[in-house]
């Protein structure tokens, strides 16, 4: 199978099979949680907007939130058959 998670996927090489979707979904949620907690801690320490470090974290937070929404839909569709 073509290895997943590579940038070449952008140009047309998604993984052929889904042998670890649940595990990877859990990783995605974990990373998202770490980034959100980090943002929250920075905001608590530096005021409402938190400074540039908080905005930098949003580079990952926003796309990961969108990906999370898609993953939830896909998992639900899998469960519901």
């Amino acid at each position, binding site marked *: 199978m*073509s290895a997943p*998670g590579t*940038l070449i996927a952008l140009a*047309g*090489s998604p993984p052929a099979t889904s042998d670890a*979707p649940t595990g990877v979904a859990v990783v995605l949620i974990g990373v998202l949680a770490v980034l959100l907690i980090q943002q929250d801690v920075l905001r608590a320490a530096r005021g409402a907007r938190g*400074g540039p470090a908080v905005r930098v974290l949003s580079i990952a937070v926003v796309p990961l939130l969108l*990906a999370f929404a898609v*993953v939830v839909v896909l998992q639900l569709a899998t469960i519901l058959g």
Partner: protein
Amino acid sequence: MESATIAGRAQPLSARETPASTLLTLLGYLAALVAMGALAVAGAPTAAAIGHGVLLVVILTHAGARLEKAKQVPDALARGLCGLALVPLLGLVGTALTSDLLPAPAHVVLVALFALVGAVLVARILDLTPAELGVRRGRLPVQLGVGLTGIPLGLLALVLGGGRAFEPLAGSSPILLVPAILLAAAVQELVFRGVLATTFAALFGRAGIVCTSALFAVAAVGTGSVGLVVALLVCGLVWAWARERTGSIAGTTVAHALVAGGLAFLPPPALG
């Protein structure tokens, strides 16, 4: 009150930091990305995803710490790290969206759209203008010439890569696949020849071309095809040079789409 962006052009590295130490830092991240690709090849997508996730958090924390220190004018390394974060981000998102329920073209479109969101966020945070990202038409004959490099480079990728990386796309409808490939090529050019080329040029000057191209090639390590990695390194060098000379990613997007289209639709050549 804070501004909406971390405005201002990059300031030079501090006296304590030499270009060599900066290069070593980036090489460390590059080696980590290669390791994640190797994990994916070894059939451990979850481990690769964990690695990409950890790397993403580390790079963004590193960038954030430097930006906090720099206050108003971020240094070149902080800007480079913001661009670099897009690579593990896409590695993680690309893996997470794996599903039998998602057709291959839909997977390509979704990953490209999330990449676009990330690239736009980096551009906004670093206050990069469309012209700085190469988002302009450029001179048509020149861009056409750059676009035509996709034909020989596509043949090179086909010969060296053997079409293996694009096997999952086999059987997809061209009506769905062509727009997906065009979108993916445009977004990938925005990420590599736009965001990364601009931020790395501020770090290393013209040597930034090599760094951007190496990252472009490293992103394909997970395909398990050494030939494809080599072919993409050559593509990256040619396109980064063309973007630097012409200031536009229009031609490189056409060339990229030709290479990707060739890999998706043409059978690997039977050599020997």
